């Protein structure tokens, strides 16, 4: 009888410990969410004919190009930056998007500024598992200087995504 009661008591304690651990395990699984960001296409403003006054070129996240003060050249060759956002695990699949304030493109000794970054989705995105994939498109505004020297300009920019709690 004593041995049996001891055994019963031990099982009760074990069950209690397991019950204590369950919320911790559930919480741990939620926190095992992960987010990944993979670039798949360059942000390209295409070919632009400079002008004495300079101007701006806007490429929108949906791939439209508009110019002011300078001339867009060619009907193609421009496109938004494209990234694949992948969210894995359980829980909130919403994420915050952080875009740069401005970056510099250079060619030889010349430079231009790119700013006013915008994205689709804007601000926050949602990559709901099980698929957990969302396409993030990035546009921006290129500032072309007066008589901007000709050349192929290039630079890099960072995009960060944060999983929201």
């Amino acid at each position, binding site marked *: 009888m004593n041995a049996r009661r001891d055994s019963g008591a031990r099982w009760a304690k074990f069950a209690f*410990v397991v019950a204590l*651990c369950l919320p911790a395990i559930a919480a741990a699984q939620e926190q*095992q969410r992960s*987010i*990944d960001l993979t670039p798949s296409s360059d942000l390209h403003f295409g070919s632009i*004919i*400079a002008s004495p006054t300079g101007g701006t070129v806007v490429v929108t996240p949906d791939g439209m190009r508009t110019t002011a003060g300078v001339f867009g050249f060619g009907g193609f060759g421009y496109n938004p930056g494209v990234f694949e956002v992948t969210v894995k695990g359980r829980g909130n699949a919403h994420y915050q998007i952080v875009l740069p304030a401005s970056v510099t493109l250079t060619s030889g000794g010349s430079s231009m500024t790119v700013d006013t970054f915008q994205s689709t989705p804007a601000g926050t995105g949602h990559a709901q598992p099980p698929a957990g994939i969302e396409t993030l498109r990035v546009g921006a505004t290129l500032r072309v200087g007066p008589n901007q*020297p000709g050349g192929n300009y290039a630079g*890099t920019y960072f995009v960060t995504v944060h999983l929201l709690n």
Partner: protein
Amino acid sequence: MKSFKRTLLGALALTLLIPAAGFAQSSATATGDALANIIQPITIVNDAALNFGDIVADAVGGSVVVDTAGAATSGTLTLLGGESAAAFTVTGAAGRTFDVSSDLNTTITEAGGATMTVDTFSFSCDPCTIGDPLTVGGTLTVGANQTAGAYSGTFDVTVSYQ
């Protein structure tokens, strides 16, 4: 009691370890390339006029052709020389090709108001490459008993990148 403690310790270890692994993947940063190709604007400057030279008027009239090399020919009219093709300097991005176009025709006038028509403009190249010399010829139509005088007018030549 011993196994209870062991289980409790295990559970504690689990709860301590897993959040650390989870938070490490809660954000991601990627680098994108941003690119733009700037092309120097194309410009065109006129260096020499299209000149049909001195032509002797007659009772029939006719036409005078100046080719892009600047040579004048006429089927019927007597030419006394002084002709030249129009010449232009085109600048832009090295190696780029461009198209040439012009007005279809223009009217040239002398001081007294008499007119003649110049048309059928021809180009030394079309398309051209930046750096190519661009010369333009044309055809002048001379009327019967055309009024003597110095005739002049203008025509536009347009260049655009291909």
